[in-house]
């Protein structure tokens, strides 16, 4: 190597070393947010929502406009994402230390990551038990965002997963609402005979399969075992109920869907549409989807019935457990406008706005006490929320309550079960491996 080239290489290496040591010091920690301070009504307040697309998008747009009218010096900057895109967006903003003042969160492992990482402001003083604002929410919804006795989240709406069914299709096929998993499977040939796809199902995104699996796990695996398996430190994933649930899921896909092994090639929105257009007799859906399936299609609101996915007669878990969880918002712990963010969220969760959120076309059952009533919400939403409230326990979304590597193993496993490339035992093996690596 010539002297000049050697000098250049040394300089390049030196510069690289400087860059490396300078760039990996981690994000600068700002001062902790003071959520109890008097808000200063000026500047830009940024908020990351999960309400992109119709019919939800206008909800926050209208609120932002109303808030700006009340406080002319405040500019509310909305970043609206979809259910799928918000996961990546939130993590990108977190990694680059650029989270907005307020941002959407699920419960479970997803929320705990932000809390443990010091990214979510402690709202105990303003929303905890005994506070005026906290008293407006249902206690389980508030507790869903609690960690070590402190309260971090603003619960916006409740959610649960139920089998939606077309009452007219059931009548035409002479089928009763199934009480057990066996009855559900037995009803499928009759519904097909009557000219319907028994259950519309699309799993292109992977998570719809997990929703079935988590409810079936709740039926077949004792709750304490299940919850201990969420934490990689205590997880074994060896309860015999898991493979039983996976086998039930395979049975449901092969006998009750028209797409069968090809279900991974179908969007969940296509399945939703098949149900809404009256081509399918059933569609497993979140409460948040109820008003959407009956808007503009062939399915009238009065024709939409719901029932919890039934457990098998011999199930070892608790068939009364409902899959679901509230969803809400965090205030950025490093936001210089934390007090203003709290004020905005109080505005969002006021009784009037909560009722608007719970009513069609939004149909998102608010966690604010008294917001979901027969006057404000559709019959199905009201019924769904009643079932959620009566459930002895909720089982959170599988991809949100487990560690990311485990969630990813479940996503791949659900797809493999559908396509037939893996047996239930093989899926469990891959989940156990992922759980071990997450320790």
């Amino acid at each position: 190597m010539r002297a000049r080239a050697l000098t250049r290489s040394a300089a390049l290496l030196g510069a690289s070393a400087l860059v490396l040591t300078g760039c990996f010091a981690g994000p600068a920690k700002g001062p902790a947010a003071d959520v109890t301070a008097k808000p200063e009504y000026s500047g830009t307040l940024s908020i990351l929502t999960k309400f992109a697309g119709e019919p939800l998008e206008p909800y926050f747009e209208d609120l932002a406009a109303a808030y700006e009218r009340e406080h002319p010096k405040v500019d509310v900057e909305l970043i609206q994402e979809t259910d799928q895109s918000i996961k990546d967006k939130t993590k990108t903003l977190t990694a680059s230390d650029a989270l907005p003042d307020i941002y959407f969160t699920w419960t479970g492992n997803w929320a705990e990551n932000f809390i443990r990482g010091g990214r979510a402001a402690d709202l105990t003083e303003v929303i905890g038990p005994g506070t005026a604002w906290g008293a407006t929410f249902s206690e389980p919804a508030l507790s869903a965002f609690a960690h070590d006795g402190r309260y971090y989240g603003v619960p916006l709406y409740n959610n649960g997963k139920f089998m939606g069914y077309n009452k007219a299709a059931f009548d035409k096929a002479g089928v009763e609402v199934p009480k057990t998993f066996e009855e559900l499977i037995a009803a499928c040939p009759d519904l097909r005979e009557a000219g319907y796809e028994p259950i519309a199902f699309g799993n292109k995104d992977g998570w719809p399969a997990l929703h079935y699996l988590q409810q079936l796990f709740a039926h077949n695996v004792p709750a304490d075992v299940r919850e201990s398996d969420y934490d990689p430190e205590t997880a074994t994933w060896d309860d015999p109920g898991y493979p039983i649930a996976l086998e039930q899921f395979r049975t449901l896909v092969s006998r009750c869907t028209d797409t069968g092994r090809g279900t991974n090639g179908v969007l969940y929105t296509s399945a939703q549409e098949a149900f809404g257009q009256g081509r399918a007799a059933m569609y497993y859906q979140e409460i948040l989807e109820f008003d959407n399936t009956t808007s503009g299609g062939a399915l009238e609101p009065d024709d939409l019935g719901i029932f919890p996915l039934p457990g098998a007669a011999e199930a070892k878990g608790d068939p009364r457990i409902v899959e679901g969880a509230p969803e809400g918002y965090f205030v950025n712990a490093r936001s210089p406008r934390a007090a203003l963010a709290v004020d905005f969220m109080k505005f969002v969760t006021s009784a009037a706005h909560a009722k608007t959120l719970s009513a069609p076309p939004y149909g998102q059952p608010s966690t604010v006490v008294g917001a979901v009533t027969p006057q404000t919400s559709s019959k199905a939403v009201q019924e769904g929320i009643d079932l959620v409230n009566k459930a002895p326990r909720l089982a959170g979304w599988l991809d949100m309550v487990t560690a990311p590597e485990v969630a990813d193993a479940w996503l791949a496993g659900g797809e493999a079960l559908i396509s037939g490339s893996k047996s239930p035992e093989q899926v469990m093996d891959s989940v156990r491996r992922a759980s071990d690596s997450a320790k």
Partner: protein
Amino acid sequence: MRTLYRRAAGLAWTAPALVLLAVFVYLPLVQNFGYSTLTWDIYSGSQEFAGLDNYRDLFADPVFWTSFTNNLWYALLSVVFQVFGALLLAALVESIRSTRWQRALRTIYFIPSAISLTVAGLLFYFIYEPNLGLLNHALEAVAPGTFDHAWLGQESTAMTAVIAMSQWQGFGYSTLLFAVAIQRIPAELHEAAALDGAGPVRRFFRVTLPLVREMTGLMVLVTVSGAFQVFNEVMVMTSGGPDNSTHVLGTWLYRSGFVRNDFGHAAAIGTVIFVITLTIAMAQLWFTRRRRVEW
């Protein structure tokens, strides 16, 4: 003195571009390598030095090898269709005597390239859809019950289905480039060969092929390099599923970072992609510096 001044002036003129390159290209490259040696918790911001652990985990990761194999499969099929297939088609189009037809065909073949990959991916998703998709309906009409597939929903067909869309999208652009290369060949050479009794096939192999060798070599390198940078079409059509069977290095990098929260692993994949594409780029530079074909 004057030389020194000229050098300083040259440096001053190129400085803005150099700064931009350093900040937006070389610094991220160095940073990425740094990240690949860390265990990084994006939530707390804590970063621990992990040495080459991420690389060791990467080479023991079966999905990484699936992704790498898919990239190779992508490269192979792209070379077959977008280089040799496109060359053959360009030769056929250029052999048509009517310039009006030539123009019309070039336009028809080029149109898919004008569509964004995301739009094309969505379009093909609906073509492949098992219930309502155009492809299954067409196949059902031709051979009932024979080819009915969930093309993107099964491991056995998903990757090939994604690659097929990609070939459809990129085929016309390659054809156009080859058409330009063929047009540069002096007509006298073809005429002389024809006078010597060479038919169209022989003329293709004896005249066209040797004289577009440069473009062919370049296209092979560009196509292979592009095959290792695939991302959009896989993300739009399958997101790497079912059961991680359609991941390519780009999508597995993305999933490792943004779904599995393992940014060190993701950065290690980034380094591997960089090494592969850098090697191909070096080959490309070497290739373009060789003596050009002259006539």
